[in-house]
C-alpha cells in the first residue's frame, strides 16, 4: 500500500492483487486512519472483536447520504436514488424491507431450491465439458450457476443474462467512470420497471411477482422501491457467489492435500465452504459506516460524524480468533468468520450462497476428478472491484 510521506496515512482501498489481502500495520491496537480517494479520512478497524462491536452498534449509520459518510467514489451532483436499497438504510426503514425478504431467504425455503441448484450445477458442468478443454471455469461454471439460480428466484429471464451481467460488472469495477456507472444503473432500472410491469399482468411463482402482488399492490412498498430492491438482489446474487466459486476452485487446486482430504471425506464440504469464506473474504473493501453520535469502539473514541471502515478481511485473519490465519486449513472450523458481514445488515442471502457453494464445489471436484489449472497460478489475474474475484480461470480435466 502507498503511504503519503508527510502523514504516513495509508491510502485506501488497498487494491486486490492476490489471495492474501493487503492489510495495514496498525500494531496491536489494530485501528488507524486511512486516506480515501475522495479526500476524506476514515478510521479503519481491523480487529475481530472491534468489528463485532462496531457492526452491532446502533451508534453507526449505513446511510451514505449522511454528512461524514466515508466514500470511496465521489457522489454525483445529483444524489443517487436509494429507494429499496436497504443495505444503505438504518432502522426502522431498514427493518421494514429486511422483514419483507426474510421469509424468502430462510433456510427452509432455500432447502426447497436445492434440487434446482443441483440440476443447474450438473448442467453447467456438462456444458463446460462439451466445450472441451481447456475451458474458462468462470465463464462456463462460476458465473452461470449463481446467475441462473438468482434469476429463477427473482423471476428474471436468464436469456437476458448478458445485459445485466455486463452492467453489474460496470457497477462494481473501481475503474468505471461515474457517468458510465449511472447509465448502467438507469438501464438496469428501466429493464426492471418493464419486467415488473409484465409480472403485474402475468405473475409467476417468483420473488418479484410475490413482492409486487403482496407488498406493492397493498401499499406497503412503492414500485420504485421494488425496482431498487430487485436491482440490489440481482447484483448481489450474481457477483458474490460467482466470485466465490472461481476463487474457491483456485484455492483448492493450489492445496492438493486438502482437496484430497475433502475427496476422502465428502462430509467435510461444510467446513471447507466456511474456511473458503473466511480465507477469501471477497468483500475486500470492508464495510463503511458513519458515527451518528459520540461513541466508543474497542476503547477508541469515535466522534459523531466520523466515517469508519470495518475491514472484514483483516478481522477474518485476526490471530486471536484464527491462529495462523494466512494459512488455508479446512479443518479449523471457521464458524466465527465475518465474510457475510456482521450486525443487522449481515448478508440476507447467506443460506442461498452456502447451498450454492456446497453443491457447486462438491460436484466440481467429484465429477472432474482430474481437474487442474491450465495456467501458471502466478499468472491468474484478479478483478479490481468492490467484490474480489478472478477474471478468468483456465482449467483442464
Amino acid at each position, binding site marked *: 500500500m502507498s503511504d503519503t510521506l508527510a502523514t504516513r496515512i495509508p491510502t485506501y482501498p488497498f487494491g486486490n492483487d492476490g489471495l492474501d489481502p493487503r492489510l495495514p500495520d496498525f500494531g496491536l491496537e489494530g485501528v488507524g486512519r486511512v486516506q480515501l480517494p475522495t479526500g476524506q479520512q476514515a478510521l479503519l478497524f481491523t480487529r475481530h472483536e472491534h468489528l463485532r462491536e462496531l457492526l*452491532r452498534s446502533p451508534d453507526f449509520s449505513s446511510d451514505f447520504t449522511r454528512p461524514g459518510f466515508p466514500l470511496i467514489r465521489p457522489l454525483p451532483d445529483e444524489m443517487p436514488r436509494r429507494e429499496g436499497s436497504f443495505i444503505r438504510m438504518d432502522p426502522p426503514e431498514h427493518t421494514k424491507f429486511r422483514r419483507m425478504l*426474510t*421469509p424468502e431467504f430462510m*433456510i427452509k425455503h432455500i432447502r426447497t431450491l436445492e434440487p434446482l441448484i443441483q440440476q443447474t450445477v450438473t448442467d453447467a458442468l456438462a456444458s463446460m465439458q462439451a466445450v472441451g478443454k481447456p475451458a474458462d471455469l468462470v465463464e462456463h461454471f462460476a458465473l452461470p450457476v449463481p446467475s441462473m439460480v438468482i434469476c429463477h428466484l427473482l423471476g428474471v429471464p436468464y436469456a437476458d443474462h448478458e445485459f445485466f451481467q455486463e452492467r453489474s460488472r460496470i457497477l462494481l469495477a473501481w475503474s468505471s467512470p461515474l457517468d458510465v456507472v449511472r447509465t448502467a444503473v438507469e438501464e438496469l432500472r428501466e429493464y426492471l420497471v418493464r419486467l415488473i410491469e409484465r409480472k403485474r399482468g402475468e405473475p409467476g411463482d417468483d420473488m418479484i411477482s410475490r413482492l409486487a402482488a403482496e407488498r406493492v399492490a397493498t401499499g406497503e412498498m412503492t414500485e420504485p422501491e421494488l425496482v431498487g430492491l430487485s436491482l440490489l438482489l440481482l447484483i448481489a446474487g450474481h457477483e458474490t457467489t460467482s466470485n466465490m466459486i472461481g476463487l474457491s476452485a483456485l484455492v483448492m487446486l493450489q492445496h492438493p492435500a486438502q482437496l484430497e482430504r475433502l475427496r476422502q471425506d465428502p462430509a467435510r464440504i461444510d467446513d471447507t465452504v466456511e474456511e473458503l469464506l473466511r480465507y477469501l473474504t471477497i468483500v475486500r473493501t470492508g464495510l463503511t459506516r458513519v458515527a451518528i453520535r459520540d461513541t466508543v469502539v474497542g476503547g477508541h473514541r469515535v466522534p459523531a460524524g466520523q466515517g469508519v471502515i470495518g475491514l472484514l478481511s483483516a478481522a477474518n485473519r485476526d490471530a486471536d480468533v484464527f491462529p495462523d490465519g494466512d494459512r488455508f486449513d479446512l479443518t479449523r472450523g471457521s464458524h466465527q468468520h465475518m465474510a*457475510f*458481514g456482521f450486525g443487522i445488515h449481515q448478508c440476507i442471502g447467506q443460506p442461498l450462497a452456502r447451498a450454492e457453494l456446497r453443491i457447486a464445489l462438491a460436484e466440481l471436484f467429484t465429477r472432474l476428478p482430474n481437474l487442474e489449472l491450465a495456467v501458471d497460478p502466478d499468472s491468474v489475474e484478479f478483478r479490481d472491484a468492490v467484490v474480489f474475484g478472478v477474471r478468468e480461470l483456465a482449467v483442464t480435466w
Partner: protein
Amino acid sequence: MSDRLRVAVDREACCGSGNCVRTVPEVFDQDEADGLVLLRQPAPAEADWAAVREAAYNCPAGAIEVTQG
C-alpha cells in the same frame, strides 16, 4: 458451576440470518411465516451448551441471550 443454561431470544432484534438454526437446530428454528427466530428449547440439554453459546456469539444482531444459573 450451575447445572442449567437458559436461553432467551429477542424477535424484535432478530434479522433472520438463520445462523442459530444452522448451528443448533435442536434449540432454534425460523418461523415459517416471517423467517424470524423461534426458540424450541429455552433450557437446552448440556450436550448443546457449547453450540448454543457459539450461536449467541455469532448472532449478527445480538438477539440471543444465554444465562447460566
